[in-house]
């Protein structure tokens, strides 16, 4: 629940004449009486927002595609450190394996490296368009390649974001959590 703009306007509307009359005592008394109510509404809104974030970050099924098993484990750890509750983690060591996994398993989030043998991340993202299980699923590229061209290409193909290696858990949180909220 968000704080109603009408509620804020009503408080200001009542406050303005008092301020205009320079009736500081009355203005202060009114503010003191109105503030707890506003604060209460704010706290309710914050609690509701937190609850919503918890819901969208719960029971996430993630697919992590990277040719390095160490990197896959690090990415998974970063997701958990970001407060995302993972109900299932699927791993693939290249795009072809990733497509096979997603063909049999619906997921809520895909994180993929770009530079991989057999099928790279860009080809993987291109082929995901034909997968029913990938429809509407946010894709985040995790790449060593710093080139704008590859990043732009990945975004054009449907990726929602990218994280450059090396990265911190906080950077993973910043890039991934808003995508889960948006859904």
């Amino acid at each position: 629940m968000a704080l109603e703009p009408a509620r804020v306007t009503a408080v200001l509307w009542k406050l303005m004449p008092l301020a205009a009359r320079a009736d500081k005592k009355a203005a202060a008394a009114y503010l003191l009486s109105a503030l707890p109510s506003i604060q209460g509404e704010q706290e309710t809104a914050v609690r509701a927002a937190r609850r919503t974030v918890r819901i969208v970050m719960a029971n996430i099924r993630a697919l992590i595609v990277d040719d390095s098993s160490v990197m896959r484990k690090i990415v998974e750890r970063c997701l958990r450190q970001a407060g995302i509750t993972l109900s299932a983690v699927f791993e693939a060591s290249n795009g072809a394996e990733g497509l096979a996994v997603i063909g049999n398993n619906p997921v809520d989030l895909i994180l993929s490296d770009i530079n991989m043998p057999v099928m790279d991340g860009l080809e993987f993202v291109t082929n995901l368009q034909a997968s029913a299980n990938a429809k509407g699923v946010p894709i985040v590229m995790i790449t060593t390649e710093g080139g704008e061209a590859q990043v732009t290409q990945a975004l054009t193909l449907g990726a929602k974001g990218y994280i450059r290696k090396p990265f911190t858990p906080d950077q993973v949180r910043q890039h991934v959590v808003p995508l889960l909220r948006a859904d």
Partner: protein
Amino acid sequence: MNPDVTTTVPGNGYEQRNEEWRRALYEAAAEVFEMMVGEPVSLQEDTAAAPGATDTTAMVGLAGALCGVLSIRCTTSSAAGIASKMLGEPVQSTECIEQQLDALGEICNMVAGNFKARVEGLREQCMLSVPTVITGQDYCLHSLADNDRLEVALLFQGNPIVLRLEIHG
């Protein structure tokens, strides 16, 4: 910036470039170790004093505006230390050799990517290969070209790690 890296830059543009690239290599490696391994590396003052007993070598090829090979050499023990720190769990036994090699290859890959991002003109114009890792000491790396070579010696947990950039063109 470690003062050891910023040595006097000679007037020769070629040497100046090498000095800048050596510095970029050090900074790239320092950042990768800081962020992904969670433990800093320090610069070893005397490159020539770096022991030759390293037995694990990770390599990444570079192509495009810069053609060459970036390699990282260290001991098996250091590779195990790096993997353990990255995964947050012990990866010391011989059964975990795959994870140790994987970790070193990924470190090499990230250092190469970070290095090219720091050098003007390389970020967009240079591509990286997937990493290759070699174990053992009894090998020689031959190149057909007359290479230029940059080397940066580091210490990780007191043990040597050598970064080498072979420049083919």
